[in-house]
């Protein structure tokens, strides 16, 4: 714990004990004042009792962020965000417990029901006081004990900073540098919490790791930071998602996820994103500006991203793989749905550095209503990546005639032995298809659900079983009312 003790000393010398405490006393509440400045960054860091190097890293990020401008190259439109008009730290507010399900928004309950969430779980999600039938805390604890036996670290990011500072310090920002892009840099300055996973050498994680319990328990904020390290020869499957639409008031979600796979390690990262998409007229909804990147550092390593993006007003997200180790493999499977006024500009980057590196990209974009769906992807084969291969397939499905599907591939090949394939299709659910289904007794919605699920099958298959079922239901819900 050399870093740990060093850090403790540095904190005292750099910040001065009384400054820190004085600051806390001065604020003495659970949220920082509106706006963003260095004091807020210091406040967040102090609240989390972070080591000095991390505070410095945050400050460095903040200063860098001040010099940056928002990217505007994505095919999305939105009003300018006033970054000084937001709160950057709010301790989890204890939710006001309701007495029974009768007090819960009936629309929310209807959605839960469609998702097939058991009643007790529904109560839990809706913030109703429940007895110990469904006790997520104890479930999480059993989880942790079992994982600890294998030497696996699975905890919140803040906890990892305290318990495994050497790992955090070594890998934080090593895949997504603090200066990477506007949102990632903002996140680096003000990130609230997130997950930390370390799988030791040669260990195959015996269960799917999920943020599910943790999110419910801790109510993580808008700037999540996740770091997953798979040491040599290890394997982990990580699930990120919410099983219920969060009626989140927060406008901006700028998360950063970093994955590191060492020699022969494999990481499978699955996301089902279902944030509030805004109403039918495009009012409200989450801006989901997320930076996700994985580094296949070791030889024969593999990182696989699977995402089902049905929520958010705007999605700006490109889970990527840096294929550095020879023979490493990157995969990206994506379903993105935009209905009503939703906009998505999403895709991936596959950067081939090592020899015989391989990547596969399969994306399914579904647009309905006035939704706009863009696939934007980069395949880059660097000079050293002899024998690299990429296969890309981008399919767009349109429902109705006011939506759009767009494909913007960037392909850069600097090694003559590389093979790169790109296929793209656009199709529309035709009136003939709908009528055919209806003539057999199916409703238009059932027909669309069937066609959409058929369209997405290739990607849904990549999800862990129980997630796939959930994802299918989510697709149905997001496309509700897209015809007729």
């Amino acid at each position, binding site marked *: 714990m050399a870093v740990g003790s060093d850090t403790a000393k540095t904190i005292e010398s750099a910040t001065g004990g009384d400054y820190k405490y004085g600051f806390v006393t001065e604020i003495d509440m659970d949220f920082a004042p509106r706006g963003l400045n260095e004091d807020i960054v210091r406040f967040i860091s102090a609240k989390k009792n972070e080591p000095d190097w991390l505070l410095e890293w945050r400050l460095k990020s903040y200063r860098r962020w001040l010099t940056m401008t928002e990217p505007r190259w994505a095919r999305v439109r939105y009003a300018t965000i006033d970054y000084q008009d937001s709160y950057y730290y709010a301790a989890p507010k204890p939710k006001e417990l309701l007495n029974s399900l009768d007090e819960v928004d009936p629309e929310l309950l209807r959605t839960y029901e469609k998702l097939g969430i058991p009643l007790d779980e529904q109560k839990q999600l809706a913030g109703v006081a429940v007895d110990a039938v469904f006790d997520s805390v104890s479930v999480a604890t059993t989880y942790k004990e079992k994982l600890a036996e294998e030497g696996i670290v699975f905890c919140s990011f803040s906890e990892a900073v305290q318990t495994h500072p050497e790992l955090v310090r070594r890998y934080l920002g090593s895949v997504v540098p603090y200066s990477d892009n506007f949102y990632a840099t903002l996140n680096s300055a003000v990130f609230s919490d997130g997950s930390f996973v370390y799988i030791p050498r040669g260990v195959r994680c015996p269960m799917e790791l999920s943020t599910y319990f943790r999110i419910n328990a801790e109510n993580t904020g808008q700037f999540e930071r996740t770091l997953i390290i798979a040491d040599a020869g290890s394997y982990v499957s990580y699930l990120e998602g919410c099983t219920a639409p969060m009626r989140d008031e927060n406008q901006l979600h700028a998360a950063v996820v970093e994955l590191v796979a060492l020699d022969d390690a494999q990481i499978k990262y699955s996301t089902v994103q279902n944030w509030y998409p805004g109403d039918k007229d495009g009012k409200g909804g989450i801006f989901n500006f997320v930076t996700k990147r994985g580094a296949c550092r070791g030889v024969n390593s593999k990182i696989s991203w699977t995402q089902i993006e049905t929520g958010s007003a705007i999605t700006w997200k490109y889970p990527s793989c840096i294929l550095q180790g020879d023979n490493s493999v990157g995969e990206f499977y994506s379903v993105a749905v935009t209905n009503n006024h939703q906009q998505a500009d999403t895709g991936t980057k596959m950067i081939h550095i090592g020899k015989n590196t391989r990547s596969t990209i399969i994306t399914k974009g579904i647009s309905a209503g006035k939704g706009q769906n863009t696939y934007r992807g980069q395949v880059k084969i660097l000079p050293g990546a002899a024998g690299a291969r990429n296969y890309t397939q981008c399919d767009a499905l349109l429902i109705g005639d006011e939506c759009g599907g767009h494909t913007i591939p960037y392909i850069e090949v600097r090694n003559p032995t590389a093979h790169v394939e790109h296929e793209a299709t656009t199709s529309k659910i035709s009136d003939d*298809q709908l009528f055919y289904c209806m003539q057999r007794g199916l409703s238009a919605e059932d027909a669309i659900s069937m066609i959409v699920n058929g369209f997405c099958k290739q990607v849904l298959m990549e999800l862990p079983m129980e997630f796939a079922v959930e994802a299918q239901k989510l697709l149905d819900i997001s496309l509700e009312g897209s015809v007729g």
Partner: protein
Amino acid sequence: MSPGTETETPDVAKKTPLLEIKDLHVKVEGKNILRGIDLTVKAGEVHAVMGPNGSGKSTLAHVLAGREGYEVIKGGVRFAGSDLLDMAPEERAREGLFLAFQYPVEIPGVGGMNFLKSALNVVRKHRGLPELDAMDFLTLAREKMRLLEIDEKLIQRAVNVGFSGGEKKRNEVFQMAMLEPKLAVLDETDSGLDIDALKTVANGVNSMRSPDRAIILITHYQRLLDYVVPDKVHVLAHGRIAKSGGRKLALELEKKGYGAFGQSDASVAA
């Protein structure tokens, strides 16, 4: 199978017509296509509606099934005691109206088995029957496929995707057999079929004949009627039923063509 009052049983289902079309006028894209159709079909009967291209045969089929874009300007249709035109297309299907399409559409990504199982269960639910699970469904499907001499592989593929013309038509007949409608309307199911496929289709239709069910065969040619003997034959010309009769009428048409009805675009014989 000669039609007429003497063969009718005093069955209640037979007394009330299953389908009753009265003075039906329909416009498509501003053009009058049907100009006063009157047609009554009772349970247990097989009717052939014949006519040259452009006489309104397919329009009639689509209007019955509830396709959008067909404007009923006059007249009405009653089906099993209800106002058919008031019902949404899927309600008509659930009530037991089946249309075998002239051009069955391809639905990529949707497996034939999944599709038909969903449709069958919706229909069964509507009829107050328990839904079938995958095993029961498969057993039933295999039985029907054997009966209709249909290759099992057909329903393992996506709906109609990459099917030959004959396979598409067989698939329609197979779906009809599975869904067991009260009224089946076959829209030129015989056109473009070779003799083997035609026999399969005819076989399927004949196996569906039942005292509780009516079948309307819409056809250009009389040759299907060599295998499926209709109770009644109607000639459609210029959007009206120009003549109705028995089986003989079809044979007559084969000799004389549609010329006598003022439309002679093709011969009636195959």
